[in-house]
């Protein structure tokens, strides 16, 4: 198989980390995924007196000041702290550092920290004067605050972008990052997503859903992407990313055509696929199409990151992390192909194909 974009540069994942309801960092993620232990827990009514849910999947023990160990966390919202801390972990994992001016950041979000926006406005509406708000809190109500803070924290002066695409945002961001690299606009891109549990997000989600079976989750996950030419370790290659819109709710056509387009770009058949997983919204038409197209073994090869709850924009990146974790824990001689299909009930589908290099393959070469 080959990367699906003609002669353009191959893009590979060289490191990753996650701060998730499994815990802080890569190893709790690996352990949690292997054990499949549930991470939902009752919400402490003292901490969360007035949210519409009694249970959620929160990151345990995440206190920004403790994790980041630096001044400057006071005005940080939880989502930004999750993003900044996760980027820090990836930078520690990365064995072949790239200079900050060649390093970009691409962060997928749904709306940024809706709690920051709502809290700022609420303070203005309820104070004696509408002006009685802390101006220091204004910047964090802007969607790109988290990505900007990641750059400031680690001096990353390459392209810095915030991608909003709901539950497909993680994969749309991945494609954005891939294009930055293939167009030579960065040598490394830290590409991920972040989402926080909050009063504001819980109520917006509560009022916009009919189905409440998937509990709200939170966290951040970040991949380090580089051109293969940079020579870093190659955990996986991004072969193709394709996205479609479910026009007027036609998810069946959208998922079928996005998956077929990815397979065509890679020159492979469904039978060649080691793993297929979905993430994001649960839409029966999507499941039906994938069940018909792929083998039960492929559908079961990698656990679903749904166990972490509805993690919004992060769901796609958590699912890629689940693929990487599973591949790492069960190595194979030959290359394997994994598809991740992200679904947003608003009407978008995105599909990525990853090549996981086998131990008998020269890691620098696609077969």
């Amino acid at each position, binding site marked *: 198989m080959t990367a699906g974009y*003609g*002669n*353009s540069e191959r893009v590979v994942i060289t490191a990753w980390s996650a701060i998730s309801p499994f815990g802080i960092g890569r190893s709790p993620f690996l352990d949690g995924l292997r054990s499949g232990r549930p991470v939902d827990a009752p919400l402490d009514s003292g901490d969360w007196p007035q949210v*519409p849910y009694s249970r959620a999947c929160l990151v345990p023990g995440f206190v920004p000041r403790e994790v980041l160990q630096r001044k400057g966390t006071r005005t940080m919202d939880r989502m930004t702290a999750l993003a900044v801390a996760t980027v820090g972990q990836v930078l520690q994992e990365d064995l072949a550092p790239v200079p900050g001016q060649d390093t970009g950041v691409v962060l997928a979000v*749904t*709306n940024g920290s*809706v709690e920051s*926006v709502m809290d*700022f*406005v*609420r303070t*203005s*509406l309820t104070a004696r004067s*509408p*002006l009685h708000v*802390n*101006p220091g809190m*204004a*910047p964090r*109500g*802007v*969607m*790109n*605050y988290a*990505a*900007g803070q990641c750059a*400031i924290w*680690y001096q*990353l*002066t*390459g*392209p*810095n*972008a*915030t*991608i*909003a*695409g*709901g539950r*497909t945002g993680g994969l*749309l*961001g991945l494609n*954005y990052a891939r*294009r930055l690299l*293939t*167009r030579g*606009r960065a040598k490394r891109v830290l590409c991920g997503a972040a989402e926080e549990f909050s009063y504001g997000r819980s*109520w*917006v989600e509560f*009022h*916009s859903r009919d189905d409440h079976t998937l509990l709200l989750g939170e966290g951040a996950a970040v991949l380090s992407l580089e051109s293969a030419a940079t020579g870093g370790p190659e955990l996986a290659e991004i072969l193709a990313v394709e*996205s*479609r*819109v*479910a*026009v007027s709710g036609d998810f069946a056509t*959208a998922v079928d*055509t996005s998956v077929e387009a990815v397979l065509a770009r890679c020159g492979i058949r469904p039978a060649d696929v080691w793993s297929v997983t979905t993430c994001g919204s649960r839409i029966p038409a999507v499941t039906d199409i994938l069940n018909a197209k792929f083998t039960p073994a492929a559908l079961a090869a990698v656990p679903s990151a749904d166990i972490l709850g509805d993690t919004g924009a992060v769901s796609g990146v958590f699912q890629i992390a689940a693929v990487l974790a599973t591949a790492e824990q069960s190595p194979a001689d030959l290359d394997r192909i994994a598809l991740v299909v992200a679904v947003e009930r*608003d*009407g978008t589908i995105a599909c990525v194909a990853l090549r996981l290099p086998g131990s008998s393959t020269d890691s620098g070469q696609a077969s």
Partner: protein
Amino acid sequence: MSVQHRVVLTGFGVLSSIGQGVAEFADGLRLGRSGSGPITAFDTAGFERTNGCEVAGFEAARWIQHVPAEQLGRAAQFSVAAARMAIQDAGLTEDALREPLGLISIGTTDGESADLEFLVEQDVRGGPWAMDRVRAARVSAGRLSLEVAQELGLSRVEVPTIGTACAAGNYAVGYGFDAVRSGEVSYAICGGADAMSRKTFLGFYRLGTISPDVPRPFDVGREGILTGEGAGAMVMETLESALNRGARIYAEVLGYALNCDAHHPVAPDEASIARCIQLALKDANVKPSEVDLISAHGTGTKANDVTEVRAIRSVFGADTPRTVSLKSMLGHTMGAASALATIASALAITHGFIPPTINHRETDPECPIDCVPNIAVPADLRIVQNNGLAFGGNNAILVLGRYEGKPR
């Protein structure tokens, strides 16, 4: 990077405080129209400074035919309407866009934050159970791009919304450029959209950057910005495609660059902006001496104007081209700002004039540039640079050229 298509702009859709549609917008730019006026979008009681730049008389139903109106917040209504205008202006129908692969990417600062603000008001009055379900369901910022596809019935498209604040429009146009240039998509509909937001007004107000009357970029007496709203959308396609179908070409996108100050959440950084300009000119294969006009970010705050002009002068020196601020007319339209400025830059090239920096009385000695005060001037423009700078130190600079047959 084997394939390198040339990328051209062939259709524009505009919603702005100085005109709707390309023709009205071009007239407004040429006449130096002011979009400033009292804010009506939200209650300004308790504020001493109460002006903004709103889009008056927007008729959503004229442009939005398929997606139910209540499914769209005002920002998505803007993006969808501007996109439909753009494809009409390009002489395209949605049928022609159904088969080829496309990219729809709209930049925004606030998404549907006006809806979020409404939910907060309901919460304050009646508790969280009183929040409106219809508004809650439409606040996801991704819908600004997605709903364009829904309205036009386009499935074979990728729909990332770009949330990089006040430079988001240039980010989106840059993304369209990369996707079309490499041949990965056949066309892109890109731009930016934002609606008036109490949160944004309040934020700028408390940072001390709202003007009492009008914005006066580069003026010694400037007192800040006015927040505004609007949308700019454009059709981007390969030169080959435009020539094959006999499309009018407004301008060619020559290149762009992105970088990040990594310095301060709100204060701009001179050296970093200068580097972004140099990267953009290099990407476009343009020498500084070839740039005929700069459309500045030009917010009209001292922090922005002085820093931005210093950065420009550090690259262009004594040869600094005329440098204008469209925000003097449009206010600061946030994520729409650099998209509207891209369109204005292309119209300036097409029609041979430089839009003025209005409300200008006396140029700040710390901003030693010719900002083309108050009255448009005729000019033969070949290359225009469009600056977009954002909170977070996110810089995005685009370079447009007049389409002249032979490649640069």
